[in-house]
Structures are given as C-alpha cells and as structure tokens.
C-alpha cells in the first residue's frame, strides 16, 4: 500500500447541549482541521462526511452540511457509521489515484434526539424492536454475559470509569472530567442492571475532522504527517442472541489485520497509546481482549494491573475516552484525532511521553457489532 497520512485534525469541545447547528459544528471542526494542517479548502481534493439520518432527524442528513464541509464543486460522499469508517473511506479515496487529499468530517447532536428511541431503531423491527430494547439495555445484557464469562464484578468494570473520567480532567474538550471513586460509580443511579449511570457514556454534541493525504498530497501542507500504518474493519453477526456478545472475534480479526499491515507483533509492547471506544465501562476490558492487549478473559486483570493508566506501560484513553464524551459517529474519529495529537506530542496535559505508535478504535451497531481499528505512527 502507498503511504497515507493524517496531516490535520480538528475538533469542537464536547458538551451536553450546544446551540450551534449541524453545519456550524461541521464548519468549526473542518476549518480547525484545515488550519491545523496549515492549508485551506483549496488544498482539498475531495470530501467525506459522516452523519446518521436517525440521529439528525433527517433523511440525507449530509444535505444540511455540504456547504460547511467545503464540498462546493468537489467530489463528496457520506458514510453513515462511526467516524473511524469515515476516516477509512477518506483514506481509500486518497489512495485510489483519483485524489491526493481528503477532508473527513463528522458531526453529532445527541441533545436533539432521544438516544433510547434512536437506538431502539437499531433492532430488528419484526422480532425485537417492540420489546423496547435499546443501546443501554442491550449493553447491559452484554455486560452480564461478560461478567459471567470472566467472573468479574461490577466494581471491576467501575475501575474503567474511574480511570477514564480522571483522564478527562486533562482534556479541555471532554464533557465529563471527574475525579470519582469506584464507590461513586457503584452508588450512581441504576439504569439497566448491571449498568449504572457512571458506567454509561453521556449524550453529547460535537464534531471532529481530519485531513488525509497521500505522501505527495501531504506536501501541500505545513504540518508533518502522522502515517496510517495499518487499518482493519470487520463486522460480527447482527442477531442479538445469536452473536456471542462476550466474544470479541470481530475485533480480533480487525485488529489482527491492522497489526499485520503495521508490523505490530506484540501490541502491548509495540503500541504506546490506545484510544478505544468505551461507550460503557465494561467495554474497555472487553476490547482489551479483542485488541490483543490482554488474553481472552484477562481484560479485567489488565485493567486492575494499572498498566493502562496514564502512568502505566500502555495508557488507554488518556483523553478520557468515550465514557467522558460520546458524540455518536464522531467518537471514533475523536479517537483518531487524539491519537494524532499524541504522536505529534501536542496532547498537552494528557500527553503520553514519547508516543511513537498509537491505536484508535471505533464501533458500529449495538454492543460493538462492527469494529474499525487504526494503527498510526510517526
């Protein structure tokens, strides 16, 4: 594969409710990414936007943001899924020979819709939807299966929430920077047993953008490139009840592919920082297993060891993770943006010293059905 880089990143702050309209958020993130790259819209050959018609309450949700994304008289397309898939598509287009640069931008205003209703519509309308299941209740079923499988406790999962909310205190963009204890998590309001309020990510508004360039395209910009070393994306089966929710086989496959491309042999050693999609506390140790940071059933063990804390061997979610700000669809792109900042040494108070290789992870669908994994390096 030809070399391909991320040369610019931009993000808004993430908040419970922003006044800005979809297009205003997109414009903010996109112009920040362009400015960060040291270029302008004229340096962009094509655009990929990321949005979701259900969340936006609008069929063709990308229609409202074409101007803000800078798509006038340019080739453009829209991914409906997590931002990591948007980055992936932007990368494919840059590698296709048709373009040398892609601007990818994703937006979300969770505050304008009702999350539980929107995610209820993920479920099969014939056999499951009328039961009223949603993202949180299905995640609770997954959490319980995982607990049973590895004999973990709710307190174990709470550790991820405690760690990440604390990390968020170093991130000015995060929505929920908090110094909390396991006890606080345990005492927070029970939503869907075993998931309590502080096990769950918040509803968020925000946008993020990246500028992708081939080696040649990167020369248009001032910023030194962060290279995409590997990427993999794989979906598991859909049907709740017929997919083993405590298995991470799809993430295993996606990560293996990304590692192979990037020449990563031992991710725990070879990676310097990880930003993963912890929509719920239990997901962090579960995704450790899928990403090969821990062996099967050993995710909680790794979490408890402190190795993934800010001062550990492999800090995971220095930004505070998705549990500290969850603009759906944007959140995976935020992981990429954070990874880039780490590799450039621009992550300020959340900087992992000397980070040379970073992993960013995004998910699509209920209970992390589909995964996308990026390995980036300088």
């Amino acid at each position, binding site marked *: 594969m030809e070399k391909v880089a991320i040369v610019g990143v931009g993000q808004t702050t993430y908040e419970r409710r*922003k*006044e*800005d*309209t979809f*297009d*205003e958020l997109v*414009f903010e993130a996109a112009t920040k990414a362009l400015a960060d790259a040291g270029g*302008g*819209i004229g340096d962009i050959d094509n655009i990929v936007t990321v949005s979701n018609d*259900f969340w936006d*309450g609008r069929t063709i949700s990308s229609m409202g943001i*074409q*101007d*803000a994304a*800078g*798509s*006038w008289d340019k080739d453009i397309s829209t991914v409906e899924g997590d931002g990591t898939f948007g980055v992936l598509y932007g990368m494919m287009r840059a590698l296709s020979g048709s373009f040398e640069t892609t601007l990818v931008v994703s937006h979300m*205003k969770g*505050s*304008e*819709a*009702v999350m539980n*209703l*929107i995610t209820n*519509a993920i479920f099969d*309308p*014939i056999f499951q939807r*009328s039961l009223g299941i949603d993202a949180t209740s299905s995640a609770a079923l997954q959490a319980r299966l995982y607990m049973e499988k590895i004999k973990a406790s709710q307190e174990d999962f709470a550790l991820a929430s405690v760690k990440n909310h604390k990390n968020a205190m170093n991130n000015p963009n995060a929505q929920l920077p908090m110094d909390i204890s396991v006890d606080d998590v345990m005492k927070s309001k029970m939503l869907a047993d075993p998931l309590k309020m502080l096990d769950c990510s918040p509803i968020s508004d925000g946008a993020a953008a990246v500028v992708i360039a081939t080696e040649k395209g990167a020369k248009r910009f001032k910023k030194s490139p962060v290279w995409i070393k590997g990427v993999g994306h794989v979906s598991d089966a859909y049907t709740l009840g017929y997919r083993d929710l405590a298995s991470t086989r799809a993430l295993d496959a996606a990560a293996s592919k990304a590692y192979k491309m990037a020449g990563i042999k031992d991710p725990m050693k070879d990676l310097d920082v990880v930003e993963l999609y912890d929509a719920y506390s239990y997901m962090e140790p579960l995704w450790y297993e899928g990403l090969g940071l821990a062996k099967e059933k050993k995710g909680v063990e790794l979490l408890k060891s402190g190795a993934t804390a800010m001062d550990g061997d492999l800090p995971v979610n220095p930004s505070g993770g998705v549990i500290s700000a969850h603009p759906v669809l944007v959140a995976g792109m935020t992981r990429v943006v954070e990874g880039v900042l780490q590799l450039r040494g621009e992550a300020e108070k959340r900087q992992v010293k000397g980070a040379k290789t970073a992993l960013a992870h995004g998910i699509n669908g209920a209970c992390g059905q589909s995964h996308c994994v990026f390995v980036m390096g300088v």
Partner: protein
Amino acid sequence: MTEKNEGIELLTIGSGEAFQPFNWSVGRYGSYFLKELKDNKTFYGVKCPKCGKVYVPPRKVCGRCYVAMDELVKVSDEGEVAVCTIIQFGFVDPSTGYQQPVPYGYAFIKLDGADTLLPFFLDSTDPERVKVGARVKAVFEDKRTGSIADIKHFTILD
C-alpha cells in the same frame, strides 16, 4: 394485517403511533430571522463578504467561498415567483403521520434583495395566476409565534 400468498399467510408488523421526537436548534442566524419575522414582519438575509451573495434565511457559511458570514441585510417582503407548481397528489405529512390536505400552490420565491429562493406556499385560489415571474407578497399571520409558519402564505400581486 395479513395476506395470503400461495396458501401462506403473510404478516406485517406496524409501527403504530411510534415517532421520533426532535428538538432541533434553529441556531443564532435562523433565530434572528424568526424573531424579525415575528416582531417586525421583516425578512433578513446574510451577505457573503467575498462574493456578495445574500442568503435568505441567513446561515453561517457561504459554500462557494467557504467563509463565515455575519453581515445582516434586510430584504423585501415582496418578490417574484422563480419556479412553481400546484400540488395535487396526496401524501403523508411526516411530522404528523396524516395525509396533507391538497391541492395547494407551491413556489420558490426570489425576494427582492435576496439571491436565494424561499420555498413557500402560494395562495392558489386562482391557479391560472400561479406562474413563473408572478409578483408576490408575504401575508403574515396576526398571531405570530416565531416560526416560519408566521408567514401565512404568499399572495399574487399582479
């Protein structure tokens, strides 16, 4: 509801009264426009500092120039029909789930001073007068609430 297909009963599942509620931010540009409509029956647009195009209703970004706009411009409540039709077919209003009442006149109106077109319904009591180039004027509701529906319709002048 069921139907038979070669002896097999084919079922459907209905969504019933289910709906998705939204609380969309109108944004500051649009909010200003609606407030002026409500308080002063006045239309405002925003002008691009680069190409000079006037957008009604106002928005932040001029797509062509890719710059932010913030210069407000008052435009007329009169204008010209750029394109139009009379809607005669029935369809479901997705905001209510019920059939829209038809027929009604529908036009894209170029308000004097604006460079974009405002889509709205037209008083089509006399369908013969619903045509390209017709001069029109906004008719406002007496009781205005700060929504686009404060414009009752556009009436044909000539």
